[in-house]
């Protein structure tokens, strides 16, 4: 990473689609080098918020407010993005998919290839380097996507439920990898899985309601990834489940 990861300030943002308000006056801070998780009921606007930060608001969205970093660079140049699906391209091998950001810049150097190979081996894809995405399992594909994100070497990483499609064990493994590899980056992870949040987060927010509002953050302090046997894990899990049940609004 070229510099210390910046803090991202999201200040008084309003977002509406076709005049229907998603959220109003929403403010949030992604602390420098910390892992922030955002939870909330589906359809509440979590993805919209992440896409707003990533500058991916579609044409029918109206946006007001300010999003900026505490360094002087524009935020768009400092982010990398992981979507709900792995977005691997079927005509490229795992290695070439990992290198896609360099291809799109028109410049793949030997060092880039070496670094990509190293990272792919590190995440356990030694035998898959030259395989096509169609030949890989969901977990392997998502690991390629993670390597692609890391190779962009951006200080801010935005992730939109990237591990939600994986089975429990694969997800557990990839979370461990992510915690290690995304260290010291400013990360925003959207998830619907409270356990994922507790394993990885320094700060947890819940977005709920219509228009959506943000809860006060829950802070976790022990080192990551947290083990499910960790006492802090268990306490927070209970708290988070209660908070989420409340946020979903329908008591059974």
């Amino acid at each position: 990473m070229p510099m210390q990861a910046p803090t991202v300030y999201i200040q008084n943002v309003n977002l509406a689609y076709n005049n229907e308000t998603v959220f109003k006056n929403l403010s949030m801070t992604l602390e420098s080098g910390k892992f922030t998780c955002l939870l909330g009921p589906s359809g509440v606007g979590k993805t919209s918020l992440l896409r707003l930060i990533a500058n991916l608001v579609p044409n029918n969205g109206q946006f007001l407010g300010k999003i900026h970093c505490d360094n002087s660079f524009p935020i768009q140049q400092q982010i990398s993005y992981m979507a709900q699906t792995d977005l691997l391209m079927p005509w490229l091998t795992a290695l070439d998919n990992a290198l896609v950001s360099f291809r799109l810049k028109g410049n793949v150097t030997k060092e880039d290839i070496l670094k990509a190979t190293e990272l792919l081996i590190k995440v356990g894809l030694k035998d898959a380097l030259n395989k096509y995405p169609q030949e890989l399992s969901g977990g392997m594909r998502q690991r390629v996507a993670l390597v692609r994100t890391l190779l962009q070497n951006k200080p801010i990483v935005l992730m939109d439920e990237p591990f939600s499609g994986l089975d429990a064990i694969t997800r557990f493994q990839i979370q461990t990898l992510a915690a290690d590899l995304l260290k010291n980056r400013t990360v925003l992870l959207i998830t619907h899985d409270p356990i994922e949040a507790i394993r990885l987060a320094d700060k947890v927010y819940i977005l709920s309601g219509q228009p959506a509002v943000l809860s006060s953050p829950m802070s976790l302090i022990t080192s990551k990834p947290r083990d499910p046997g960790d006492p802090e894990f268990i306490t927070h899990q209970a708290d988070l489940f209660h908070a989420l049940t409340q946020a979903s609004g329908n008591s059974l």
Partner: protein
Amino acid sequence: MKLFWRGSILFFGLIILWQGMVSFFQLPPYILPGPWSVFKTWYLQANLIAMEAIPTIIETILGLILGSLLGCLAALTMAFFRPLSLWILPILVISQAIPTFAIAPLLVIWFGYGMASKIVITIIMLFFPVTSAFYDGLRHTEQGWLDLAKTMQAKKWRVFWHIRIPAALPFLASGLRVATVFAPIGAVVGEWVGASKGLGFLMLNANARMQIDLMFAALFTIVIFSLLLYFIVNIILRLLIPWQKEIAKNS
């Protein structure tokens, strides 16, 4: 293997039906010759048929290649310069409303009795399916890939080259398959209208002289060539664009 058996049963079934009709209705050979006499003519006239097949094959393949290239070029131009498509697309649609058969004589006058006019007719026939299939593919790139490229701050033409074109190739492939079916028709139509060589010319001549067996022999040659061409193009496309199934699954 299943396909082979089904094909064989279908083939021999039709031959038997054909022979049955000829025997049952006592059809004279100048109306409908039996399969055996057609085969005999095919064998005896093999040299003549082969000689006439050469120009047809050349016209078909050249027309297919040139028409596909032109079709690709038009699609790429329209997709890359979007405002231009508003002008080109109506012209293409209008050009398709003109029946190729009707203007074929004119094209023969313009481009001569030789191969050029047949190639032009073939190009006109298959240009549109290639353009429209490829253009469709270029316009419907998966949004996720484009989003990803945007967050990577990629330039427009690099996104075009590295994402939109490869993502559209499976669509182009289906356009090319349609074009492959059209190509021999284009060449034969051209030969009907005015030519001194080719299987279309041979068919027309044989028809005029009541040599229906020779006409059928030429017809079957065209059918076999068309099937063979389709088969080969299909294999080439599958080898060159192995991610066709993957894209089809997504969309």
